[in-house]
């Protein structure tokens, strides 16, 4: 069980890293092309660099961005990574904190589950809508609904995660996810250790 979870979390992190790297690389391509486009002989001499082959870069970066956001929040963002207003949460008694965690878990779970069907019906019309520029890359079959579908996955996964969090808090209390600034500190330490110059 533990191995499967670890393997799964590595795989989802890998996807996120790929999305990030793709976005980063595409930006660099876009700037390079913008720059070489001024020298029109380059496009003629090296057809691969002709600027009109790169109309997709902007929208592709946007596609990567929304997928990073929703893939990320579904799979790799932890409770402590979120912007949270936690003054009250960290200062109440453990028993109250437990109920705080249960209530917020249930609220998020119920609201997101309830919105799955209505959201999908709002996306329905997008099955007809073409992307602005991604045909060049993916062909005409990719419609906007395909791009937006990551949001539905996000709704399902996050609803399950918060449902689970509520159940877990009910059984075991909510003391496990306190101290998140301390964890930031540890991570920063690690980063600096790995970064030590040779």
């Amino acid at each position, binding site marked *: 069980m533990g191995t499967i979870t670890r393997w799964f979390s590595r795989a989802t992190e890998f996807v996120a890293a790929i999305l990030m790297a793709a976005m980063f690389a595409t930006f660099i391509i876009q700037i390079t092309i913008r720059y070489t486009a001024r020298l029109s002989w380059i496009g003629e001499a090296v057809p691969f660099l002709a600027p009109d082959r790169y109309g997709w870069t902007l929208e592709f970066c946007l596609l990567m*961005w929304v997928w990073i956001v929703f893939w990320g929040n579904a799979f790799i963002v932890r*409770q402590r990574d979120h912007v949270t207003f936690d*003054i009250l*949460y960290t200062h109440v008694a453990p028993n109250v904190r437990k109920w705080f965690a249960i209530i917020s878990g249930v609220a998020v779970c119920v609201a997101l589950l309830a919105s799955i069907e209505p959201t999908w019906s709002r996306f329905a019309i997008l099955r007809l809508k073409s992307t602005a520029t991604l045909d060049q890359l993916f062909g005409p079959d990719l419609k906007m609904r395909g791009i937006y579908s990551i949001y539905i996955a996000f709704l399902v996964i996050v609803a399950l995660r918060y449902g689970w969090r509520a159940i877990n808090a009910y059984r075991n209390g909510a003391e496990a996810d306190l101290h998140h600034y301390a964890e930031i500190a540890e991570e920063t330490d690690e980063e600096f250790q790995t*970064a030590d110059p040779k």
Partner: protein
Amino acid sequence: MSFEFAACILTLFFLAGIGTPVAYSILVASIVYLFASGQSIGIAGKQLMDGLYQSFILLAVPLFIVAANIMNAGTISDRLLRFCIGLVGRFRGGLGHVNVVASLIFSGMSGSAVADAAGIGKIIIDMMTKSGHYTRGYAAAITAASATIGPIIPPSIPMVLYALVSNTSIGYLFLGGILPGLLMGVVLMGMNYFIASRRQFGMEDPVPLKDLPALTVNAFPALLMPAILLYGIYGGVTTPTEAAAVAAFYALLLAAFFYRALSLKAFYRILVESARSSAAVGLVIGGALILNFIVASENIPNMMAGALLDLDVSPIVFLIGVNILILLLGCVLDATTIILVIIPLFLPTCRELGIDLVHFGVVAVVNCMIGLITPPYGILLFVINAVTHIPLGEIIREVIPFLLLLIVALLILILVPEVVLFLPRQLGYQG
């Protein structure tokens, strides 16, 4: 206020108050709003996706996060710090000055104050406490205060967010931040000198002047980064969003090939960590986009503009009033939330009153950055407390003089718009 809007606000405050992540609190609150007003709750997701998929300027956010992470991991911050010590370590309050100057330089590369404090801030606090000349509270306080400069000097994630909600040019906002950032740096150094003299802080051993050239050479490629960024944007090579990618790319080249301090594995971790923080920030931004939709359907900004115009306030009174409000909200709210959710409420009034939106934006961002060090909710205080284990109480006590001083600097920015607008005007801004 309609019933459904009241329900939305109540849900939002309740959920956020009990520790639900702000992004999910907004999402649930907007679902409650849509449900109570008889609209489809699917609108929330549609708005969120549409907003994120269209906002090209938002792409700067993940890229600046990547850039900051590379710099922290790839010893670039380290080298800059050693250069600063050589430069200003010799004066009274030496490491305090180093702290401010390092923030000024470092801020020319990272777009985020928290990255600044967690990265370079930790190293310098250790140095200051080890030197034995400063109390640990003072070291933490001046680090926190100077980290607020980070997002004032370009590049800046908060300014990107403001550009998003106000439709102003990121290029001019960035330019507008330079002089205010320098002003804040100067007043902080002045205060540091004053306190160091009065409290008789010991002096550091000065780095021999003959070492300075070597330190400079070592840090030079990193020092070039702000210049490259600004040339990229204002020399017409890149858009401000692309400049973020250039910053990250340059940092990567420096760290990986020039300083040889970044392994492939470390770069992979940076990508994962950057994706993680970008996703968390992106969801708050998305949530704010839905809230803005709700606020627009309730017609609130226009009602506020109308009410304020009826009150017949002058632009300056309005500016001061709004800034007091932001300062107060900054004590309890996150900067991202203020910029994305609260500030848009005032924009129609600004337009009506003829207040320049670049000026307003820079002032508002400075104000929100001050909010990062105002107790009880000051994220920089928390992060430094977490990284160094210096008690919050000690940090807060020592940060108060700096806080008051930054508020004075803010007042100057409000009263003298030229400080903000001088540079943008030099490059063609018509405000």
